[in-house]
């Protein structure tokens, strides 16, 4: 919604063409985005901010007067023309006039801290010119201040708000007489911050800009990662900004690790290395992990699901296809010095990783065996998203029905993946950055499957404990634990007032309904008491259906039936290859096809068949070198500058476990 462009028509200013029908070109977009360009507002907050020397593209969309053609474009920073080639391509998104062009100047950087004025000037073939003005900021990192952060362990509990953490603590550790019996690992972090999560184009972010804000320092549109929006349909040609991993590999030789329990093409892992406007372009995203990230980011560890993107299309189970692959424009590949890519559905991407020195692990057993000896590690433990902790633990206890149904009975837990990643990454004496994501806290909150996201939060916290242990013996390490956004408007509404047997009986009785499953069951305030879960040696509850169990409500809910009893089967994961066949096709398809028997229907406040992300602030916890900088309430992009300040100029304070 552009209210006003600061477009000045040079010709009009001169009065030379005042009586002519010739109109000046209209500059409809200037990248990086700024309030100065969009609204004529030069005041902070400055929308686009970068590190000194961090690379980003300059771009403008220019609409010529009908019949005219754009022939000249210059980008000017602080009154000085930016040297280097500018490429013009025709815009091809809907609604733009004919001959609209997108002008790009690639991989610009600026080493001088401060707010800089960015102008674009353009001339058409009749000699009529326009100029538009925006701005961007190069953030001052301050003076050198002592010890620098060597390693960053960045842990994302996807969708994890405050209540996910509270619920996990109640289940794992219990509460008695008003006090938690012991803290979660993340509770022991000395510094807490509160983050605002809105994206470039919405108050409610999705996981792509929700993660790439941390890895680039900039707001992006929903569904886009590592890029600003543009006016072409090609999802791989958007104006880029340099990632933290790319910057630190280029300037300091650090390594990058990416660990996720989702498919590795998913938005959160991809938002640390891949530049695309389409978070769904799995073939191209996974190709770029090898083509770009392995060289430009020193990508050394990649662990998660998503093997379907790595198998040649001749292999059943492959999802590789030209339509989700990438080829970069030559000017972009040249400007950034990266591979141009190819449409290659038959590529053996696992073989490609192995050929540049990666050890490949296909299951938990192979992962345990390979970490110590590997210098680079690729682990792909499922064809798409990995199974969740609830089902993996069931499998380890001998009831592997779900993991067996999915075809992957030996998947690692996130703490095991964390240990393997840190073992391999710590072999680089220059340090590393690793992103570790518990992806299914979000996915199961979308499904409103309370026990599954609670156990994934427990799994995440066990990985947090491993990261904290690493940082305790490697005090040059910063550990950040946060989320990308809250998911589902989760909260703890109370506890059941009845026994597990009574609850199961009510869930199985068609006459229960609202009276039998809500009015007679949901205990609020003091009726909730203190639910007790028996934790086994593996760290997870013996049962998630104890007497008087904790109950969860959802503010971002779609329609669902609820009977409060743990679901033996997860909601179908549509990305899984066996999804459509027995036994997976017997799993419930959505939250209105589960818990139906008891007859307690809860009408959703949102349409569709899953709960949604919310815009609420999210917590951040920090431990180790530089942690103290993270206290307070601030924007999610600030996290990037706080981290990089600690890495680049250092910090005077190290806070460890309290």
């Amino acid at each position: 919604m552009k209210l006003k462009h600061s477009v000045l028509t040079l010709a009009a200013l001169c009065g030379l063409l005042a009586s002519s029908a010739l109109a000046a070109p209209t500059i409809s977009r200037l990248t990086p985005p700024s309030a100065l360009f969009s609204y004529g507002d030069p005041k902070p907050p400055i929308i686009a901010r970068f590190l000194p020397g961090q690379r980003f593209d300059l771009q403008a969309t220019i609409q010529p007067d009908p019949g005219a053609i754009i022939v000249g474009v210059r980008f000017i920073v602080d009154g000085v023309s930016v040297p280097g080639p500018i490429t013009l391509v025709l815009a091809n998104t809907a609604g733009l006039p004919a001959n609209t062009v997108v002008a790009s100047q690639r991989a610009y950087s600026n080493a001088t801290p401060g707010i800089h004025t960015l102008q674009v000037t353009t001339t058409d073939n009749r000699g009529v010119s326009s100029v538009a003005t925006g701005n961007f900021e190069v953030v001052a990192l301050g003076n050198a201040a002592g010890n620098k952060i060597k390693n960053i362990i960045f842990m994302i509990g996807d969708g994890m708000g405050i209540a996910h953490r509270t619920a996990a603590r109640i289940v794992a550790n219990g509460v008695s007489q008003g006090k938690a019996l012991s803290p979660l690992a993340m509770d022991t972090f000395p510094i807490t911050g509160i983050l605002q999560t809105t994206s470039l184009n919405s108050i409610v972010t999705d996981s792509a800009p929700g993660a790439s804000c941390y890895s680039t320092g900039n707001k992006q549109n929903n569904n886009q990662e590592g890029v600003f929006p543009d006016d072409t349909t090609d999802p791989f040609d958007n104006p880029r900004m340099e990632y933290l991993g790319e910057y630190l590999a280029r300037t300091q030789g650090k390594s990058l690790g990416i660990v996720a329990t989702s498919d590795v093409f998913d938005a959160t892992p991809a938002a640390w290395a891949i530049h695309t406007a389409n978070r769904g372009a799995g073939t191209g995203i996974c190709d770029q992990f090898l083509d770009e990230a392995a060289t430009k980011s020193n990508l050394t560890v990649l662990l998660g699901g998503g093997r379907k993107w790595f198998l040649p299309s001749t292999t059943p189970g492959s999802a590789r296809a030209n339509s989700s692959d990438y080829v970069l424009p030559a000017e972009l590949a040249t400007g950034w010095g990266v591979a141009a890519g190819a449409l290659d559905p038959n590529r053996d991407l696992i073989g490609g990783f192995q050929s540049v020195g990666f050890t490949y692990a296909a299951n938990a057993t192979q992962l345990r065996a390979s970490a110590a000896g590997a210098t680079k590690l690729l682990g792909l433990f499922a064809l798409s998203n990995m199974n969740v902790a609830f089902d993996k633990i069931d499998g380890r206890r001998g009831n592997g029905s779900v993991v067996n149904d999915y075809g992957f009975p030996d998947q690692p837990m996130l703490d095991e993946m964390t240990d393997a990643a840190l073992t391999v990454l710590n072999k680089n004496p220059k340090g590393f950055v690793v992103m570790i994501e518990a992806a299914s806290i979000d996915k199961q909150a979308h499904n409103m499957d309370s026990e599954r996201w609670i156990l994934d939060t427990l799994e995440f916290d066990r990985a947090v404990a491993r990261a904290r242990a690493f940082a305790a013996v490697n005090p040059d390490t910063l550990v950040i634990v946060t989320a990308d956004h809250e998911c589902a408007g989760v909260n703890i509404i109370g506890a059941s007032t009845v026994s597990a047997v009574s609850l199961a009986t009510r869930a199985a009785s068609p006459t229960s309904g609202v009276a039998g499953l809500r009015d007679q069951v949901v205990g609020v305030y003091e009726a909730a008491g203190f639910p007790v879960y028996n934790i086994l040696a593996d760290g997870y509850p013996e049962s998630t259906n104890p007497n008087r169990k904790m109950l969860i409500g959802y503010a971002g809910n779609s329609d669902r039936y609820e009977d409060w009893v743990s679901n033996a089967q997860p909601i179908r994961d549509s990305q899984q290859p066996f999804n459509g066949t027995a036994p997976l096709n017997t799993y419930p398809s959505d939250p209105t096809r589960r818990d139906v028997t008891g007859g307690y229907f809860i009408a959703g406040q949102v349409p569709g068949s899953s709960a949604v992300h919310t815009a609420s602030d999210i917590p951040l916890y920090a431990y180790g070198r530089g942690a103290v900088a993270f206290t307070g309430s601030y924007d999610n992009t600030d996290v990037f500058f706080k981290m990089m300040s600690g890495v680049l100029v250092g910090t005077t304070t190290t806070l460890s476990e309290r």
Partner: protein
Amino acid sequence: MRFQLLVLATCSLVPPFVPALSAHGRQTPPTQAEIAWSRTTARWENLRRDARAFLPPRPPAPTGVTDLEFSEFFSPVVGDRGLEVTDKLRDLAGQRVRLVGFMVRQSLPTPGVLLLAPQPVQVDEVEYGACDDLPPQIVRVFVPLTAGAQVPLTPGPLLLSGTLEVGQQPEPDGRNSFIRLRLDAPGLTPHIAARPVASAAP
């Protein structure tokens, strides 16, 4: 005469359009109203839900035709790389087989081709390209229609018989197919557009 495409009923779910069943399958073509109805997403979702639970028993397989299930395509435990084809699927390549599945609802269908899925599913190529959630068990079915003719969207379970092909093959629409079914040619009759009919029974 053998009918190669039989539309079985999803009777419990679609009371306004209860098609008749006989040993040879549905006996009425879909009406225009029915086709329009099937294009309504909400109704499609209703149909999708638990559709397989309502599958009627299939008639006995004709001589020389082997019944095949989607769940019989690949080994249920995935190896270190991809899915592994079962002996049954490999042995049936080139043979005549019969499958029950659901026609994928596509926004960009390919003339003469339907994608057969183990459950009702829709994909929107216009919005998402071929980046979709179709499982690898998808069977690409070649329907002997007049050149260029689209296979009409036909909701409900389909009982199809034809010759099985196994092996990866790039397709003109950008997809890769791994399992294909060439429907038995019914002479010159485009047997979906004008299949034999009789009146509906209650």
